[in-house]
């Protein structure tokens, strides 16, 4: 079974398997924002995972 959470950056739908473990990283398919899973009294929630700055050209 999959639970769907909303990306806070773009409102996209992030599919999370319900047997997810605390600390797993998920990214939003629409905008690429990365989240870390944490379990808040039994409920699966997301918090921003920091993205290492890549070389983006100029």
């Amino acid at each position, binding site marked *: 079974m999959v639970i769907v959470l909303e990306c806070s*950056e*773009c*409102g*996209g739908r992030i599919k999370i398997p319900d047997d997810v473990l605390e600390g797993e990283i998920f990214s939003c398919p*629409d*905008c*690429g*924002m*990365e989240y870390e899973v944490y379990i808040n009294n039994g409920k699966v929630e997301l918090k921003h995972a920091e*993205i290492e700055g*890549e*070389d*983006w*050209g100029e």
Partner: protein
Amino acid sequence: MKVSIIGGSGFTGGELLRILATHPNVEIKMATSRRYVGDYVHRVHPNLRGILDIQFTDPSTSKIAEESDVVFLCTPAGVSAKMTPEFLEAGVKVIDLSPDFRLKNPGEYERWYGWKHPRPDLLEKAVYGLPELHREDIQKADLIACPGCMSTAAILAMAPLAKTGFIKQSIVVVDAMIGSSGAGATPSLASIHAERYGVIRPYKPVGHRHTSEIEQELGLLAGENVKVAFSASSVNIVRGILVVCHCFTEKNVTVRDLWKIYRQFYGNEPFIRLVRDVKGIFRYPDPKLTVGSNFCDVGFEFDPYTNRIVALAAIDNLVKGAVGNAVQSLNIIYELDEKTGLMYPGIHPV
């Protein structure tokens, strides 16, 4: 269905042959060319060698009408206005890739094309062939006027904003950058490699004809007149258009609002991809990422410093900017899945 292509030797004609060659529901009856009559198409379009085994022909309009259910017109400005009436009378549907029937208001042809339209009565009958905006009308149409390549990009970039009132009483500025295939296959001093290579050439900083189409379509969405300050420059690629559109607004907008506005407008359009990534090296639309595909990548950003929404769109000028809209319209008219024959992944890197 049986289709014929009038003007098959140009880049648009060649691209139409490429897409139709692998379209499951289409039988190509004729591809005409006065200059190359009798030659095999792969002599002019080498990528079609081993794919299409037909020759260019140059028969009369009536002969073409007899053998075709639909004709695609890839002709220079002014030719389709003469040919189309004959085809329509013969009961043949016309998908016109030339500018002759794009504008509703005949006066606009005089202003932007310095040309008195010979059949203004047909302008009302013609449907602007941009499926994302006119799907229902296209379905019932006999005459489709496919949009200009840069108009396609600019309209798709700003349509959601026009619809939600962000383009009210203000001028939008549009900078379009386009590849050399947009100038067509007719040789000129400006297009020989030694002169065209490596340019960033503002070839039409003012008065570009596509302005009228963009104003027409955004005006319909906004419900009032829209003024577009359009400038076009050619850059060092062959295929591709990027438009950077500057829309000034008093309203305060967040990126999340923009995602909402664009998602609502484009829902699950098969060929629109919303591109505003927060990481990686492909964060905004870029035509390099659409080459050979029918996708229009649309993106956006908000500049609080100047209260400006920057709307971006990238397409392959020969596919979504021309034959893609034409073949989408064909699929809509014949109630096929709109993606038929068009769902190519782009070529990357290229």
